[in-house]
Protein backbone atom coordinates (compact mmCIF):
# COMPACT_ATOMS: atom_id res chain seq x y z
CA UNK A 1 0.00 0.00 0.00
CA UNK A 2 1.56 3.22 -1.15
CA UNK A 3 -0.39 6.42 -1.25
CA UNK A 4 -0.75 9.88 0.18
CA UNK A 5 -2.67 8.47 3.14
CA UNK A 6 0.29 6.41 4.23
CA UNK A 7 2.51 9.45 4.19
CA UNK A 8 0.11 11.51 6.26
CA UNK A 9 0.05 8.65 8.77
CA UNK A 10 3.81 8.88 9.03
CA UNK A 11 3.54 12.62 9.62
CA UNK A 12 1.48 11.92 12.73
CA UNK A 13 4.37 9.86 14.02
CA UNK A 14 7.59 11.50 12.95
CA UNK A 15 10.04 8.65 13.12
CA UNK A 16 12.40 9.24 16.00
CA UNK A 17 15.90 8.27 14.97
CA UNK A 18 17.30 5.28 16.77
CA UNK A 19 20.12 7.29 18.28
CA UNK A 20 17.61 9.84 19.64
CA UNK A 21 15.60 6.94 21.07
CA UNK A 22 18.65 5.52 22.82
CA UNK A 23 19.61 8.99 24.05
CA UNK A 24 16.52 8.95 26.32
CA UNK A 25 18.12 6.18 28.42
CA UNK A 26 21.03 6.86 30.76
CA UNK A 27 24.20 4.79 30.55
CA UNK A 28 27.36 5.00 32.61
CA UNK A 29 29.90 3.41 30.34
CA UNK A 30 32.87 1.44 31.70
CA UNK A 31 36.09 1.04 29.69
CA UNK A 32 35.80 -2.73 29.76
CA UNK A 33 33.15 -4.27 27.50
CA UNK A 34 30.97 -6.56 29.63
CA UNK A 35 29.82 -8.46 26.56
CA UNK A 36 32.29 -9.71 24.00
CA UNK A 37 31.26 -11.04 20.61
CA UNK A 38 33.62 -13.24 18.68
CA UNK A 39 32.84 -11.83 15.23
CA UNK A 40 34.69 -14.67 13.51
CA UNK A 41 32.32 -17.21 15.04
CA UNK A 42 29.44 -15.26 13.48
CA UNK A 43 30.67 -15.59 9.90
CA UNK A 44 29.10 -19.01 9.52
CA UNK A 45 25.88 -18.13 11.37
CA UNK A 46 22.87 -18.24 9.09
CA UNK A 47 20.22 -16.93 11.51
CA UNK A 48 21.96 -13.85 12.96
CA UNK A 49 19.06 -13.43 15.35
CA UNK A 50 20.97 -10.97 17.54
CA UNK A 51 20.89 -8.32 14.80
CA UNK A 52 17.10 -8.14 14.76
CA UNK A 53 16.30 -9.07 18.37
CA UNK A 54 18.62 -6.80 20.38
CA UNK A 55 16.32 -4.01 21.60
CA UNK A 56 19.25 -1.58 21.67
CA UNK A 57 20.33 -2.52 18.12
CA UNK A 58 23.91 -3.11 19.18
CA UNK A 59 24.82 -5.87 16.71
CA UNK A 60 26.06 -4.60 13.36
CA UNK A 61 26.95 -6.85 10.41
CA UNK A 62 30.36 -6.06 8.94
CA UNK A 63 31.40 -6.13 5.30
CA UNK A 64 33.58 -9.19 5.82
CA UNK A 65 30.59 -11.22 7.00
CA UNK A 66 31.25 -10.91 10.72
CA UNK A 67 29.31 -9.08 13.42
CA UNK A 68 30.46 -6.04 15.34
CA UNK A 69 29.12 -5.42 18.82
CA UNK A 70 28.83 -2.07 20.63
CA UNK A 71 28.44 -2.62 24.36
CA UNK A 72 28.06 1.01 25.44
CA UNK A 73 24.26 1.35 25.29
CA UNK A 74 23.37 -2.15 26.45
CA UNK A 75 20.18 -2.71 28.49
CA UNK A 76 21.82 -5.84 29.99
CA UNK A 77 18.63 -7.72 29.13
CA UNK A 78 20.11 -11.05 27.99
CA UNK A 79 18.24 -11.35 24.70
CA UNK A 80 21.39 -11.78 22.61
CA UNK A 81 22.88 -14.77 24.40
CA UNK A 82 19.47 -16.50 24.53
CA UNK A 83 18.75 -16.14 20.80
CA UNK A 84 22.34 -16.89 19.76
CA UNK A 85 22.79 -20.39 18.41
CA UNK A 86 26.52 -20.27 17.77
CA UNK A 87 28.32 -21.76 20.72
CA UNK A 88 30.91 -19.41 22.20
CA UNK A 89 30.07 -16.44 19.97
CA UNK A 90 28.78 -14.27 22.83
CA UNK A 91 30.54 -13.99 26.18
CA UNK A 92 28.07 -12.33 28.52
CA UNK A 93 28.50 -10.80 31.95
CA UNK A 94 27.23 -7.81 33.88
CA UNK A 95 29.15 -4.53 33.85
CA UNK A 96 31.24 -3.50 36.85
CA UNK A 97 29.21 -2.38 39.84
CA UNK A 98 27.68 1.05 39.33
CA UNK A 99 28.17 0.98 35.55
CA UNK A 100 25.89 0.19 32.63
CA UNK A 101 22.25 1.12 32.16
CA UNK A 102 20.54 3.35 34.73
CA UNK A 103 16.75 3.36 34.39
CA UNK A 104 14.78 6.25 35.90
CA UNK A 105 11.16 5.94 34.77
CA UNK A 106 10.81 2.26 34.11
Amino acid at each position, binding site marked *: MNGPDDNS*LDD*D*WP*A*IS*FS*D*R*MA*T*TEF*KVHDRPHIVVDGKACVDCS*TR*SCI*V*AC*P*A*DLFVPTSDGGILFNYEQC*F*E*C*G*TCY*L*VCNTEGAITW*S*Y*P*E*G*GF*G*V*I*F*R*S*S
Partner: protein
Amino acid sequence: MADPDFDVVVVGAGPAGSCAAIEAARGGLRTLLLERGPFPGSKNMYGGVVYPRILDELIPEWWTDVPIQRWVTRRSTMVLTETKALSVDVRNDAWAAPPYNGATAYRPDFDRWLADHAVTAGATLLCNTTVTGLLRDSTRRSAGRSGAKVMGVRTDRPDGDVTASVVIACDGVNSFVAKEAGLYGTPNAKNFTLGVKETISLPKHVIDERFGVRDREGVDIEVIGCTGGINGGGFVYTNLDTVAVGVVLKLTQLAAQKTRPEDVIASMKRHSAIAPLIDGGELHEYSAHLIPEAGLSMMPEMTGNGLLIAGDAAALCLAAGIWLEGVNFAMASGMYAGQTVVDAIGNGDVSQRGLGGYARRLGDTFVLRDHRKLRRAHELVLSDRVQHMYPSMVTSIAERMFRVDNPAAKPGLRRIFREERKAAGVHLRDLISDSRSGFRSFG
Protein backbone atom coordinates in the same frame (compact mmCIF):
# COMPACT_ATOMS: atom_id res chain seq x y z
CA MET B 1 36.73 -21.94 61.15
CA ALA B 2 36.34 -18.15 61.45
CA ASP B 3 32.87 -16.70 61.75
CA PRO B 4 31.46 -15.58 58.43
CA ASP B 5 31.34 -11.84 57.69
CA PHE B 6 27.54 -11.95 57.62
CA ASP B 7 24.82 -14.42 58.48
CA VAL B 8 23.18 -13.87 55.13
CA VAL B 9 24.14 -12.16 51.88
CA VAL B 10 21.28 -11.21 49.60
CA VAL B 11 22.28 -10.72 45.95
CA GLY B 12 20.17 -8.04 44.28
CA ALA B 13 18.14 -5.26 45.93
CA GLY B 14 15.01 -5.70 43.85
CA PRO B 15 11.66 -6.54 45.46
CA ALA B 16 12.70 -10.13 46.24
CA GLY B 17 16.05 -9.16 47.72
CA SER B 18 14.75 -6.28 49.82
CA CYS B 19 11.91 -8.35 51.30
CA ALA B 20 14.36 -11.16 52.07
CA ALA B 21 16.66 -8.64 53.75
CA ILE B 22 13.80 -7.12 55.78
CA GLU B 23 12.81 -10.52 57.15
CA ALA B 24 16.40 -11.59 57.81
CA ALA B 25 17.37 -8.34 59.56
CA ARG B 26 14.21 -8.32 61.67
CA GLY B 27 14.99 -11.91 62.61
CA GLY B 28 18.22 -10.65 64.14
CA LEU B 29 20.57 -11.80 61.37
CA ARG B 30 23.58 -9.81 60.21
CA THR B 31 22.33 -9.09 56.71
CA LEU B 32 24.17 -7.72 53.67
CA LEU B 33 22.09 -6.60 50.67
CA LEU B 34 24.16 -6.25 47.48
CA GLU B 35 23.07 -4.25 44.44
CA ARG B 36 25.08 -3.95 41.23
CA GLY B 37 23.37 -0.73 40.11
CA PRO B 38 24.12 2.69 41.59
CA PHE B 39 20.79 2.46 43.46
CA PRO B 40 18.10 -0.21 43.91
CA GLY B 41 15.80 -0.42 40.91
CA SER B 42 18.24 1.19 38.47
CA LYS B 43 18.47 -2.05 36.47
CA ASN B 44 14.81 -2.91 36.68
CA MET B 45 11.95 -2.46 34.25
CA TYR B 46 8.57 -4.17 34.16
CA GLY B 47 5.08 -4.22 32.70
CA GLY B 48 4.00 -1.45 34.93
CA VAL B 49 1.69 -2.56 37.70
CA VAL B 50 2.60 -3.66 41.21
CA TYR B 51 0.16 -5.46 43.56
CA PRO B 52 1.51 -4.75 47.06
CA ARG B 53 -1.05 -6.46 49.34
CA ILE B 54 1.58 -9.05 50.27
CA LEU B 55 3.27 -6.21 52.18
CA ASP B 56 0.34 -5.82 54.60
CA GLU B 57 2.18 -7.70 57.36
CA LEU B 58 5.71 -6.71 56.48
CA ILE B 59 5.08 -2.97 56.19
CA PRO B 60 1.70 -2.16 57.80
CA GLU B 61 -0.10 0.65 55.98
CA TRP B 62 2.54 0.54 53.25
CA TRP B 63 0.28 2.77 51.13
CA THR B 64 0.95 5.81 53.30
CA ASP B 65 4.46 6.27 51.91
CA VAL B 66 4.93 3.92 48.94
CA PRO B 67 6.13 5.98 45.95
CA ILE B 68 3.58 4.94 43.35
CA GLN B 69 2.45 6.84 40.27
CA ARG B 70 -1.30 6.08 40.20
CA TRP B 71 -3.70 3.62 41.82
CA VAL B 72 -5.19 1.43 39.11
CA THR B 73 -8.97 1.94 39.17
CA ARG B 74 -9.57 0.87 35.57
CA ARG B 75 -8.31 -2.42 34.20
CA SER B 76 -8.94 -3.02 30.51
CA THR B 77 -8.27 -5.98 28.29
CA MET B 78 -8.22 -4.97 24.64
CA VAL B 79 -8.33 -7.22 21.59
CA LEU B 80 -7.03 -5.61 18.41
CA THR B 81 -6.98 -6.33 14.73
CA GLU B 82 -5.58 -3.87 12.22
CA THR B 83 -8.82 -1.88 12.02
CA LYS B 84 -10.94 -3.06 14.97
CA ALA B 85 -10.81 -3.15 18.75
CA LEU B 86 -12.84 -4.85 21.46
CA SER B 87 -12.34 -3.93 25.12
CA VAL B 88 -13.47 -5.35 28.41
CA ASP B 89 -13.15 -2.49 30.84
CA VAL B 90 -13.41 -2.97 34.61
CA ARG B 91 -13.65 0.05 36.87
CA ASN B 92 -13.85 -0.09 40.64
CA ASP B 93 -13.99 3.01 42.85
CA ALA B 94 -12.88 0.99 45.87
CA TRP B 95 -9.52 0.44 44.16
CA ALA B 96 -8.83 4.15 44.74
CA ALA B 97 -8.81 3.77 48.54
CA PRO B 98 -6.87 1.62 51.07
CA PRO B 99 -5.98 -1.18 50.86
CA TYR B 100 -6.09 -0.58 47.08
CA ASN B 101 -5.51 -3.23 44.42
CA GLY B 102 -2.72 -2.38 42.00
CA ALA B 103 -0.62 0.68 41.32
CA THR B 104 1.55 1.93 38.52
CA ALA B 105 5.01 2.79 39.78
CA TYR B 106 8.50 3.44 38.49
CA ARG B 107 10.71 0.61 39.60
CA PRO B 108 13.65 2.87 40.47
CA ASP B 109 11.30 4.62 42.96
CA PHE B 110 9.53 1.53 44.26
CA ASP B 111 12.61 -0.66 44.63
CA ARG B 112 14.55 2.10 46.37
CA TRP B 113 11.69 2.58 48.84
CA LEU B 114 11.60 -1.13 49.62
CA ALA B 115 15.39 -1.29 50.06
CA ASP B 116 15.15 1.67 52.46
CA HIS B 117 12.84 -0.47 54.60
CA ALA B 118 15.50 -3.20 54.61
CA VAL B 119 18.05 -0.66 55.82
CA THR B 120 15.64 0.56 58.51
CA ALA B 121 15.22 -3.07 59.59
CA GLY B 122 18.99 -3.25 60.10
CA ALA B 123 20.33 -4.65 56.83
CA THR B 124 23.49 -3.21 55.28
CA LEU B 125 22.85 -2.04 51.71
CA LEU B 126 25.88 -1.95 49.42
CA CYS B 127 25.29 -0.61 45.89
CA ASN B 128 27.72 -0.41 42.93
CA THR B 129 28.73 -4.02 43.63
CA THR B 130 28.45 -6.81 41.09
CA VAL B 131 28.57 -10.39 42.32
CA THR B 132 30.94 -12.33 40.08
CA GLY B 133 30.75 -15.78 41.63
CA LEU B 134 30.01 -18.01 44.60
CA LEU B 135 32.42 -19.04 47.33
CA ARG B 136 32.24 -22.76 48.06
CA ASP B 137 33.47 -24.84 50.96
CA SER B 138 36.61 -26.55 49.70
CA THR B 139 37.65 -27.97 53.07
CA ARG B 140 35.05 -30.66 53.43
CA ARG B 141 33.85 -33.27 51.04
CA SER B 142 30.34 -32.63 52.27
CA ALA B 143 29.16 -32.12 48.73
CA GLY B 144 26.20 -34.45 48.37
CA ARG B 145 23.54 -33.90 45.77
CA SER B 146 23.52 -30.11 45.89
CA GLY B 147 27.28 -29.64 45.75
CA ALA B 148 29.77 -28.12 48.18
CA LYS B 149 28.22 -25.72 50.64
CA VAL B 150 27.93 -22.10 49.49
CA MET B 151 30.10 -19.99 51.78
CA GLY B 152 29.49 -16.51 50.38
CA VAL B 153 30.00 -14.49 47.26
CA ARG B 154 32.83 -13.03 45.21
CA THR B 155 32.28 -9.41 44.13
CA ASP B 156 34.04 -7.04 41.75
CA ARG B 157 35.30 -4.85 44.60
CA PRO B 158 38.97 -5.01 45.62
CA ASP B 159 39.20 -7.74 48.29
CA GLY B 160 35.60 -8.31 47.40
CA ASP B 161 34.96 -11.76 48.87
CA VAL B 162 32.16 -11.78 51.43
CA THR B 163 31.51 -14.87 53.52
CA ALA B 164 28.07 -15.75 54.85
CA SER B 165 26.18 -18.70 56.29
CA VAL B 166 23.53 -18.41 53.59
CA VAL B 167 23.30 -16.66 50.22
CA ILE B 168 19.90 -15.65 48.85
CA ALA B 169 20.07 -15.13 45.09
CA CYS B 170 17.62 -12.46 43.98
CA ASP B 171 19.69 -11.45 40.99
CA GLY B 172 16.94 -11.38 38.42
CA VAL B 173 15.92 -13.12 35.24
CA ASN B 174 19.48 -13.87 34.08
CA SER B 175 20.50 -15.15 37.54
CA PHE B 176 24.16 -16.02 37.16
CA VAL B 177 24.20 -17.12 40.79
CA ALA B 178 21.52 -19.77 40.26
CA LYS B 179 23.26 -20.89 37.07
CA GLU B 180 26.67 -21.10 38.72
CA ALA B 181 25.13 -23.06 41.57
CA GLY B 182 23.90 -25.58 39.02
CA LEU B 183 20.28 -25.12 40.08
CA TYR B 184 19.24 -23.83 36.69
CA GLY B 185 19.64 -25.98 33.58
CA THR B 186 20.75 -24.41 30.31
CA PRO B 187 18.29 -21.57 29.69
CA ASN B 188 16.14 -21.99 26.60
CA ALA B 189 15.02 -18.97 24.57
CA LYS B 190 11.53 -20.47 24.22
CA ASN B 191 10.86 -19.85 27.93
CA PHE B 192 11.43 -16.10 27.70
CA THR B 193 9.72 -13.04 26.32
CA LEU B 194 11.30 -9.66 25.70
CA GLY B 195 9.53 -6.60 27.11
CA VAL B 196 10.27 -3.27 25.44
CA LYS B 197 8.67 -0.08 26.64
CA GLU B 198 8.40 3.60 25.83
CA THR B 199 7.65 5.99 28.65
CA ILE B 200 5.96 8.94 26.96
CA SER B 201 5.58 12.42 28.51
CA LEU B 202 2.17 14.10 28.54
CA PRO B 203 0.71 16.70 30.91
CA LYS B 204 -1.23 15.15 33.81
CA HIS B 205 -4.53 16.83 32.90
CA VAL B 206 -4.26 15.48 29.34
CA ILE B 207 -3.75 11.95 30.66
CA ASP B 208 -6.67 12.40 33.08
CA GLU B 209 -8.99 13.48 30.26
CA ARG B 210 -7.92 10.88 27.71
CA PHE B 211 -8.11 7.98 30.13
CA GLY B 212 -11.16 9.16 32.05
CA VAL B 213 -9.55 9.32 35.48
CA ARG B 214 -8.74 12.03 38.03
CA ASP B 215 -6.39 12.68 40.95
CA ARG B 216 -4.26 9.57 41.56
CA GLU B 217 -6.58 7.20 39.70
CA GLY B 218 -4.94 5.26 36.89
CA VAL B 219 -5.55 2.86 34.04
CA ASP B 220 -3.92 -0.42 33.05
CA ILE B 221 -4.71 -1.67 29.54
CA GLU B 222 -3.48 -5.09 28.43
CA VAL B 223 -3.58 -5.66 24.69
CA ILE B 224 -3.64 -8.76 22.55
CA GLY B 225 -3.42 -8.83 18.74
CA CYS B 226 -1.04 -5.87 18.52
CA THR B 227 2.26 -7.62 17.89
CA GLY B 228 2.02 -8.44 14.19
CA GLY B 229 3.37 -11.86 13.27
CA ILE B 230 5.13 -12.23 16.61
CA ASN B 231 3.24 -13.89 19.44
CA GLY B 232 3.03 -11.72 22.50
CA GLY B 233 1.00 -8.84 23.85
CA GLY B 234 1.05 -5.16 24.59
CA PHE B 235 0.28 -2.78 27.40
CA VAL B 236 -0.62 0.85 27.96
CA TYR B 237 -0.74 2.31 31.43
CA THR B 238 -0.87 5.69 33.02
CA ASN B 239 1.76 7.17 35.27
CA LEU B 240 1.26 10.62 36.79
CA ASP B 241 2.59 12.60 33.82
CA THR B 242 3.76 9.88 31.50
CA VAL B 243 2.07 7.04 29.66
CA ALA B 244 3.93 3.76 29.28
CA VAL B 245 3.41 1.85 26.05
CA GLY B 246 5.11 -1.42 25.43
CA VAL B 247 5.06 -4.88 23.97
CA VAL B 248 6.05 -8.30 25.21
CA LEU B 249 7.43 -10.53 22.45
CA LYS B 250 8.13 -14.24 22.28
CA LEU B 251 11.88 -14.35 21.92
CA THR B 252 12.10 -17.23 19.47
CA GLN B 253 9.64 -15.58 17.09
CA LEU B 254 11.16 -12.14 17.37
CA ALA B 255 14.39 -13.67 16.16
CA ALA B 256 12.69 -15.50 13.30
CA GLN B 257 10.35 -12.73 12.10
CA LYS B 258 12.96 -10.14 11.17
CA THR B 259 10.92 -7.38 12.80
CA ARG B 260 12.70 -5.13 15.26
CA PRO B 261 11.11 -4.61 18.70
CA GLU B 262 10.77 -0.82 18.40
CA ASP B 263 8.92 -1.31 15.10
CA VAL B 264 6.36 -3.53 16.85
CA ILE B 265 5.73 -0.74 19.39
CA ALA B 266 5.50 1.80 16.57
CA SER B 267 2.87 -0.24 14.80
CA MET B 268 0.81 -0.66 17.99
CA LYS B 269 1.05 3.10 18.62
CA ARG B 270 -0.42 3.78 15.19
CA HIS B 271 -3.58 1.79 15.92
CA SER B 272 -6.72 3.94 16.03
CA ALA B 273 -7.53 2.60 19.51
CA ILE B 274 -4.10 3.58 20.88
CA ALA B 275 -2.90 6.59 18.87
CA PRO B 276 -5.31 9.20 20.35
CA LEU B 277 -4.25 8.23 23.87
CA ILE B 278 -0.64 9.24 23.33
CA ASP B 279 -0.90 11.78 20.53
CA GLY B 280 1.60 14.63 20.93
CA GLY B 281 3.54 12.84 23.65
CA GLU B 282 7.32 12.84 23.65
CA LEU B 283 9.55 9.85 24.31
CA HIS B 284 10.87 10.21 27.84
CA GLU B 285 12.67 6.90 28.30
CA TYR B 286 13.13 3.72 26.28
CA SER B 287 13.77 0.48 28.14
CA ALA B 288 13.90 -3.29 27.74
CA HIS B 289 14.01 -6.36 29.97
CA LEU B 290 13.54 -10.11 29.71
CA ILE B 291 10.59 -11.91 31.31
CA PRO B 292 10.74 -15.51 32.54
CA GLU B 293 7.49 -16.41 30.82
CA ALA B 294 7.12 -20.16 31.13
CA GLY B 295 6.31 -20.37 34.85
CA LEU B 296 6.35 -23.74 36.53
CA SER B 297 7.92 -25.54 33.57
CA MET B 298 11.11 -23.43 33.71
CA MET B 299 11.57 -23.03 37.45
CA PRO B 300 14.98 -24.00 38.82
CA GLU B 301 15.53 -25.98 41.96
CA MET B 302 15.14 -23.16 44.50
CA THR B 303 17.12 -24.53 47.41
CA GLY B 304 20.80 -25.42 47.44
CA ASN B 305 23.36 -26.14 50.13
CA GLY B 306 23.49 -22.74 51.88
CA LEU B 307 21.64 -21.09 49.00
CA LEU B 308 18.08 -19.98 48.19
CA ILE B 309 16.74 -18.49 44.93
CA ALA B 310 13.85 -15.99 44.83
CA GLY B 311 12.00 -13.66 42.46
CA ASP B 312 12.70 -13.59 38.72
CA ALA B 313 15.88 -15.56 39.40
CA ALA B 314 13.57 -18.43 40.33
CA ALA B 315 11.26 -17.69 37.34
CA LEU B 316 8.56 -16.63 39.80
CA CYS B 317 6.78 -14.39 37.36
CA LEU B 318 3.15 -15.01 36.46
CA ALA B 319 2.54 -14.36 32.77
CA ALA B 320 -0.90 -15.86 32.39
CA GLY B 321 -2.66 -13.68 29.87
CA ILE B 322 -5.20 -11.74 31.88
CA TRP B 323 -2.98 -11.97 34.95
CA LEU B 324 0.43 -10.41 34.58
CA GLU B 325 2.22 -10.27 37.91
CA GLY B 326 5.79 -10.51 39.06
CA VAL B 327 6.71 -7.98 41.73
CA ASN B 328 4.24 -9.53 44.21
CA PHE B 329 5.70 -13.00 43.56
CA ALA B 330 9.18 -11.59 44.02
CA MET B 331 8.25 -9.89 47.30
CA ALA B 332 6.53 -12.99 48.66
CA SER B 333 9.29 -15.41 47.70
CA GLY B 334 11.87 -13.01 49.17
CA MET B 335 9.92 -12.84 52.43
CA TYR B 336 9.67 -16.62 52.64
CA ALA B 337 13.36 -17.01 51.84
CA GLY B 338 14.23 -14.53 54.60
CA GLN B 339 11.97 -16.28 57.14
CA THR B 340 13.43 -19.66 56.19
CA VAL B 341 16.99 -18.46 56.73
CA VAL B 342 16.11 -17.04 60.16
CA ASP B 343 14.70 -20.43 61.17
CA ALA B 344 17.55 -22.42 59.63
CA ILE B 345 20.29 -20.40 61.30
CA GLY B 346 18.35 -20.64 64.58
CA ASN B 347 18.33 -24.41 64.17
CA GLY B 348 21.99 -24.52 63.20
CA ASP B 349 21.34 -26.25 59.88
CA VAL B 350 21.69 -24.28 56.64
CA SER B 351 22.17 -27.31 54.41
CA GLN B 352 19.72 -27.95 51.61
CA ARG B 353 17.69 -30.01 54.07
CA GLY B 354 17.84 -27.35 56.79
CA LEU B 355 16.50 -24.81 54.28
CA GLY B 356 13.59 -27.08 53.33
CA GLY B 357 11.10 -24.67 54.90
CA TYR B 358 11.41 -22.45 51.84
CA ALA B 359 9.85 -24.97 49.46
CA ARG B 360 7.09 -25.64 51.99
CA ARG B 361 6.31 -21.92 52.33
CA LEU B 362 6.24 -21.42 48.58
CA GLY B 363 4.08 -24.48 48.09
CA ASP B 364 1.53 -23.51 50.74
CA THR B 365 0.98 -19.97 49.47
CA PHE B 366 -0.17 -18.21 46.32
CA VAL B 367 3.42 -18.21 45.06
CA LEU B 368 3.28 -21.78 43.79
CA ARG B 369 -0.47 -22.28 44.04
CA ASP B 370 -1.14 -19.63 41.41
CA HIS B 371 1.60 -21.05 39.25
CA ARG B 372 0.27 -24.58 39.54
CA LYS B 373 -3.27 -23.47 38.81
CA LEU B 374 -2.25 -21.41 35.78
CA ARG B 375 0.56 -23.62 34.55
CA ARG B 376 -0.99 -24.09 31.11
CA ALA B 377 -2.20 -20.52 30.67
CA HIS B 378 0.89 -18.97 29.09
CA GLU B 379 0.99 -21.60 26.36
CA LEU B 380 -2.66 -21.05 25.54
CA VAL B 381 -2.35 -17.26 25.52
CA LEU B 382 0.72 -17.38 23.28
CA SER B 383 -0.75 -20.04 20.98
CA ASP B 384 -1.19 -19.19 17.31
CA ARG B 385 -4.99 -19.32 17.37
CA VAL B 386 -5.35 -17.05 20.41
CA GLN B 387 -2.78 -14.69 18.95
CA HIS B 388 -3.75 -14.51 15.31
CA MET B 389 -7.22 -15.98 14.70
CA TYR B 390 -9.43 -15.31 17.71
CA PRO B 391 -8.81 -11.52 17.80
CA SER B 392 -10.18 -11.22 14.29
CA MET B 393 -13.11 -13.53 15.11
CA VAL B 394 -14.26 -11.82 18.32
CA THR B 395 -13.83 -8.27 17.07
CA SER B 396 -15.79 -9.12 13.91
CA ILE B 397 -18.57 -10.77 15.90
CA ALA B 398 -18.83 -7.66 18.08
CA GLU B 399 -18.76 -5.39 15.06
CA ARG B 400 -21.51 -7.35 13.28
CA MET B 401 -23.68 -7.25 16.41
CA PHE B 402 -23.67 -3.47 16.36
CA ARG B 403 -23.73 -2.96 12.59
CA VAL B 404 -27.06 -1.65 11.30
CA ASP B 405 -27.23 -2.82 7.73
CA ASN B 406 -30.68 -1.62 6.67
CA PRO B 407 -32.53 -2.44 4.60
CA ALA B 408 -31.09 -5.83 5.45
CA ALA B 409 -32.66 -7.38 8.55
CA LYS B 410 -30.51 -8.31 11.55
CA PRO B 411 -28.73 -11.61 10.93
CA GLY B 412 -29.07 -13.09 14.43
CA LEU B 413 -26.24 -14.07 16.74
CA ARG B 414 -25.94 -17.66 15.66
CA ARG B 415 -25.44 -16.75 12.02
CA ILE B 416 -22.97 -13.98 12.89
CA PHE B 417 -21.00 -16.38 15.01
CA ARG B 418 -20.90 -19.06 12.32
CA GLU B 419 -19.98 -16.69 9.52
CA GLU B 420 -17.32 -14.82 11.44
CA ARG B 421 -15.80 -17.99 12.83
CA LYS B 422 -15.43 -19.29 9.29
CA ALA B 423 -14.17 -15.96 7.99
CA ALA B 424 -11.44 -16.01 10.63
CA GLY B 425 -10.52 -19.55 9.57
CA VAL B 426 -11.36 -21.05 12.97
CA HIS B 427 -12.45 -24.71 13.03
CA LEU B 428 -15.23 -25.45 15.48
CA ARG B 429 -13.36 -28.42 16.95
CA ASP B 430 -10.31 -26.23 17.68
CA LEU B 431 -12.51 -23.61 19.29
CA ILE B 432 -14.13 -26.22 21.51
CA SER B 433 -10.80 -27.73 22.44
CA ASP B 434 -9.29 -24.30 23.21
CA SER B 435 -12.34 -23.34 25.27
CA ARG B 436 -11.90 -26.53 27.25
CA SER B 437 -8.25 -25.89 27.90
CA GLY B 438 -9.15 -22.28 28.69
CA PHE B 439 -11.51 -23.46 31.43
CA ARG B 440 -8.90 -25.92 32.63
CA SER B 441 -6.14 -23.28 32.63
CA PHE B 442 -8.07 -20.47 34.26
CA GLY B 443 -10.80 -22.34 36.11
